[in-house]
């Protein structure tokens, strides 16, 4: 079937509009859940050693309460490996782990999740030795345990979080974290 340039533009706009509508729907849903769960402190900032950020990461997580036992979490983090590159210039590796997890439990929670780590790292070009950057994607999973007393703002966790580096190299990995809820 032949599609003219004008039709293609309209189709693309329609698809974008659909995507936009879908995103608004998701955000509205999340907002509704989070308003219901304001009292449960839906935001967590955490420091993680190990995990999908590599050696460690600073994370922000938004918790959406489903019911008394179940909740969902969307997490974004930030990490690095080298901050100064091999030419001694400020040129940091950037690692951004993105995860979603399902939590089950109240004070003691178990969780299961997955996500992607986006890396933008510096390497020495094979042909000229100059610093170059490459962006890559890596899948990660997590299964773990979290502990938080209802009246306490601090949260503690431990996870097994294997990584599929560059979507092809499987690595066992883990993490411990401490977070603050607000």
């Amino acid at each position: 079937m032949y599609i003219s340039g004008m039709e293609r533009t309209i189709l693309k706009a329609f698809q974008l509009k659909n995507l936009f509508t879908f995103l608004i729907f998701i955000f509205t849903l999340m907002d509704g859940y989070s308003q219901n769960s304001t009292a449960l402190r839906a935001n967590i900032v955490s420091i993680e050693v190990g995990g999908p950020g590599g050696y460690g990461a600073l994370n922000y997580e938004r918790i959406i309460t489903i019911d008394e036992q179940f909740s969902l979490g969307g997490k974004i983090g930030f990490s690095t490996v080298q901050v100064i590159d091999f030419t001694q210039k400020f040129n940091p590796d950037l690692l951004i782990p993105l995860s979603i997890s399902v939590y089950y439990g109240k004070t003691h929670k178990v969780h299961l999740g997955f996500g992607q780590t986006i890396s933008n790292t510096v390497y020495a070009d094979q042909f000229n030795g100059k610093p170059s950057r490459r962006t890559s994607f890596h899948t990660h999973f997590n299964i773990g345990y979290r502990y938080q007393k209802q009246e306490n703002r601090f949260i503690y966790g431990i996870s097994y979080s294997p990584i599929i580096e560059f979507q092809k190299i499987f690595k066992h990995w883990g993490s411990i974290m401490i977070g603050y809820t607000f």
Partner: protein
Amino acid sequence: MRITLLFIGLTVVFLSCQKNDFNISNLNGNKITVLGHGGMGIGHSYPMNSQESILNCLNLGTDGTEIDVQMTKDGVLVAYHDETLDTKTNSTGKIHEKTWDEISDVQYTTPHFNGYRLVRLESLFQNIEHLKEYIFFLDLKNFNTASDTSYYATMLTEVNNLIVEFDLLDNIYVESKNEGSIAALQSINSKIQHFAYAEYEKALQLAEEHKIVGITLPFDELTEERITLLHEKGIMVATFNTHSKKRNIRAVQFNVDFIQTDKVKHLVKILE
């Protein structure tokens, strides 16, 4: 109490700022040549012998670096330490069983997410600015023990070709472990400078018999008596396994001529 704490604090600051004054006396112009150990050494986040590790080491102000050298099946010299690729990379097998094309995309497994790759020596030397200002120790590793001598002979020829191609006769020391490899390389090019790399007695014997410039000893085998004796015989000393600041300082106090360190920044700083 507050005054006591202040006193302790000031003492700590004073001691930490104390400059190390060394009275260096050796065969290297009373100077110690600071070398990285495969670049930034064991334990650094750049993998040993990767291009990133070696360039980082040179850019920190060292005099050069030690590099572990192996050769592929098709005669390409590659910087890599271990016997198998399994231990440090996402590949398996040995370097001498592979062609360069088969391993050019192999990645080191640490640190996560960086995917640093193996580097061939030719590319590395092409990429080093002011190459002739640096000193390189090449530790030739032959894990192809099953094959006849032709593989190792080819490896020595390739090493010589590399040294000649980049005009590095004055900048490279080849670490050799036995009579056979010293004699073979001397027969290819008598101007190549050697360090004997073996146990002390064996290394001394090799150095004296083949009149080579020095011997390489692990830090644990250094004693003042040995170094004095070697220097009296006109034999220089290189050491490695200085994987702590304390060992760096002790190695300097031993008056060795070359240190292949795992604590690069520290050694550069104390010898500035």
